[in-house]
């Protein structure tokens, strides 16, 4: 194995991303599915495929997919039709899936991805709408496969990339970008673990310099961003080694097994489908007018790429900090609210990047679940900036604010942390410290000036953290130098 020169080869990767839309109801039925609800409780006769039921297009579905198309610079078809994709499976109640075939509503777009040392533009072939199937559960009953149709009919969009990706890292960056966009647009929660974002990958390899694509395989069942990267990495190596050993890559679908960290081919029978696509007769074509496009364009939020650049220019933020803060639309919103309150972008980014992000990471929560509002956190920072509290007090109050919804200044008073800048109060404390530590005083006077920190610490302790450290320092320096 070690004799193989992997660098001789180049991988060609295309991703198909399915995003479950956050519409109020299913794609074609008036039920709002709840994640984690008891099996087969979020259904109507339509979701169950009962005879005589008819699909009805959810209007948000069309708006949402157009948003995605516009956000990825796609053309939007003024007329596109739904098609039926026919196949039998127990979790597919109608025996066909409503999808789009040769007329996707959005096509020919792109996204820009950022890697550590380069940027790259990745083409989007098409974005189309479809409904999700139910879920087959194979591991809860030893004798039967169970079917949960809660998910059946849930609206999905499928985003198909051009085969422009060359490395697993690029695939990861592309997928993250798609997730970021759907979250910015608020059309999908982007959660891969819960299955609201799903990804299949088409992977082939070819000798560097060769134009023609190699035979590709399709990877499925990767349920996290890391697993997508891992599975593609595994597949590239598998294909290169196969070719180097004189074998041939077979076109097949392979399932990623997270526990074994390897993929296995799906039974070829399982994938030998003739889907018999034909126009869905129950749904008229979708027509998109210029007016609709104008309206939807106006609804689009500022997207991460634009916002990142603005933060760098407007707030003088470093690129890294701007990337971190704009990664989530809500964190960036939060940040800008703090800026508004404080009028100081630098102190806003300090508190958000240090304290706020620390808590989000520790608790693995989203900024929307963060208990301290931008207004309250701004008040806290303001106390510090006005010298009413010192930085250690700010830390203590911040931690308390996570559990108590009170005004920070009131809390500072209650916690007895309002900084004391009154030398009448501080002088006796300083005098006492000098008197009680003659050795340190002696050494300081002999030139060990760094002992100043020791004296300040003692003073802070004696004042129960309330002393203004700057004033304390001035006082001590003055007294010791007398």
């Amino acid at each position, binding site marked *: 194995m070690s004799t193989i020169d992997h660098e001789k080869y180049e991988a060609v990767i295309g991703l198909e991303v399915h995003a479950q839309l956050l519409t109020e109801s299913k794609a074609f039925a008036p039920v709002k599915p709840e994640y984690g609800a008891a099996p087969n409780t979020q259904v109507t006769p339509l979701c169950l495929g009962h*005879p005589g039921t008819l699909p*009805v297009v959810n209007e948000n579905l069309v708006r949402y997919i157009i948003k995605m198309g516009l956000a990825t610079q796609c053309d939007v078809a003024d007329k596109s039709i739904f098609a039926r994709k026919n196949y*039998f499976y127990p979790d597919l109640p109608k025996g066909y899936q409503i999808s789009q075939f040769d007329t996707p509503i959005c096509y020919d777009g792109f996204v820009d991805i950022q890697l550590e040392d380069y940027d790259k533009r990745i083409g989007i072939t098409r974005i189309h709408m479809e409904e999700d199937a139910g879920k087959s559960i194979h591991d809860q009953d030893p004798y039967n496969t169970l079917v949960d149709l809660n998910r059946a009919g849930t609206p999905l969009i499928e985003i198909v990339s051009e085969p422009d990706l060359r490395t697993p890292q690029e695939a990861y960056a592309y997928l993250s970008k798609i997730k970021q966009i759907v979250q910015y647009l608020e059309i999908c929660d982007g959660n891969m673990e819960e299955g609201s974002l799903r990804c299949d990958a088409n992977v082939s390899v070819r000798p560097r310099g060769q134009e023609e694509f190699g035979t590709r395989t399709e990877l499925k069942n990767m349920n996290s961003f890391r697993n997508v990267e891992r599975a593609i990495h595994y597949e590239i190596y598998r294909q290169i080694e196969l070719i180097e050993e004189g074998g041939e890559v077979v076109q097949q679908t392979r399932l990623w097994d997270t526990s074994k960290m390897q993929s296995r081919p799906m039974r070829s029978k399982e994938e030998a489908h003739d889907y*018999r696509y034909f126009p869905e007769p129950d749904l008229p074509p979708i027509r998109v007018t210029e007016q609709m496009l104008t309206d939807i364009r106006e609804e689009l939020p500022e997207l991460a790429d634009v916002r990142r650049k603005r933060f760098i220019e407007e707030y003088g933020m470093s690129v890294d900090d701007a990337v971190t803060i704009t990664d989530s639309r809500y964190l960036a919103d939060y940040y800008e609210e703090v800026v508004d309150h404080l009028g100081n972008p630098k102190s806003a980014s300090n508190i958000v990047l240090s304290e706020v992000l620390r808590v989000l990471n520790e608790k693995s929560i989203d900024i929307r679940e963060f208990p301290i509002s931008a207004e309250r956190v701004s008040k806290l920072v303001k106390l510090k900036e006005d010298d009413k509290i010192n930085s250690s007090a700010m830390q203590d109050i911040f931690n308390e604010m996570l559990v108590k919804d009170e005004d920070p200044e009131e809390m500072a008073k209650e916690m007895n942390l309002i900084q004391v800048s009154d030398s009448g109060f501080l002088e006796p404390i300083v005098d006492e410290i000098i008197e009680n530590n003659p050795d340190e005083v002696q050494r300081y006077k002999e030139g060990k000036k760094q002992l100043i920190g020791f004296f300040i610490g003692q003073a802070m302790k004696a004042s129960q953290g309330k002393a203004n450290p700057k004033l304390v320092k001035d006082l001590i320096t003055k007294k010791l130098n007398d």
Partner: protein
Amino acid sequence: MTISETREKVLSGEVQLNDIVNHYISRIETRNDEINAYVATDFEAAKKQAEEIQKKIDKGEAGKLAGVVLGIKDVISERGKKLTCASKMLEDFESVYDATVIERLLAEDAILIGRLNMDEFAMGSANEYTNFGPVKNPHNTNKVPGGSSGGSAAAVAADMAMATLGSDTGGSIRQPASYCGVVGLKPTYGRVSRYGLVAFASSFDCIGPLAHSVEDTARILDVIAGFDERDNTSSQKATGNYVDAALNPNKNIKIGVPEEFFGEGLDPEIKEGIESLLKKLEADGAELVPIKLPYTKYGIATYYVLATAEASSNLARYDGIRYGHRADKEEVLDELKKEEEALRQQFESATGDEKIALQEQLTKMDSALIRLYKKSRTEGFGQEVKRRIMLGTYVLSSGYYDAYYGKAQRVRRLIQDDYKKAFEKVDVIVSPTAPTTAFDIGDKLDDPVQMYLNDVYTITANLAGICGISVPAGTHSDGMPYGIQFMADSFQEEKVINAGRLAELHTK
């Protein structure tokens, strides 16, 4: 008894609703054993409904169809009732919701007395392909009633209902109406909601009324027509004044007479009868305009590609997994085991290429799931349904799509254009409803193509999506009735009602 007569008598208090309901109950009790139009009845519910509606009448709050006793084709969903589509596949299936048309009928106080026999999943022209046994023509019980709404037509003809609902995908309301001597109206595609109509061919299917008179079909249409947000293919266009069109028909209409519908294959007596009726209409003031519909000769071929394609997909849901007929699981597993064992034994003793072939066979054996699908569907569907599913699956298969489905779609548009052009010149187009009168039961059972030809005059209205009506035009020397068909452009139901009423004035 017609709807208008009933309405007068009921509202004036001359007749009580329970008398009406009892009349139909006794008709059904005496006639249905022989005719076999109803597959299920609920007399108690009908009586109870009559009592409640009678109270409304007494308070002056009666709906438009108060006292109208209706039978419903067993392809339209009624909550809490069996919805079998005359198929073994759904023999135990009970619907959990009301079709839109049912909601609308009930809101206007119609009384629903039972479920009507039909060709399985509405596929057939003689009402012989049914899990409940054939329906007999009330005019001669050796004859078929036509299909697929044979039960709906026969129930009206035998006075077992005041009117009925049928469905028309390729002539399934109009052809049985013709065979049974009643009026049958197929509305424009999109005029009546399909929500709750079990789909056969979704871009063709229409619900419509069958009744004793043109006016009665207009009264039913008046209630069931109109936009429904649960059916994206239903039209938002305003509905017409159908009843008025029946009450005050305009005699000075332009009637297009297409040469294609009066040629070869048409029974000469029917031809003569229709032509003499047209002369009377002309004498009344109508203008007869010879027209051509050159592409209609491809109607049957086009229809059987497109309708079966849609059917193959629409009927995929009957897989024995969630509801409907399911083959015996143990049997499926047993068969699988036996086959596998047999193959394995052969494999053990085989050598060379044969061994490789057997190995291949073993790996390619259908899974238990696939076997369950196949066996459930084989057992659950009848011959004609299976024939159409196979045909439809074939025309959609990769490699054949363009040659069949794609081409048929293009021809469908040409036929639509034929009609569009014709309706620039005429109000309605006339034809016989069917080329013959009702044939003998069993006559065409083994010759599907002959069976399909019965729909030659009706099928193109479904391809074009336009409306049509069949009105009794006369009686053949064989003693059987035959109908005259009028077609009008989309959403011009008033025009077919108008023309139908003019014809009816000469034949009643």
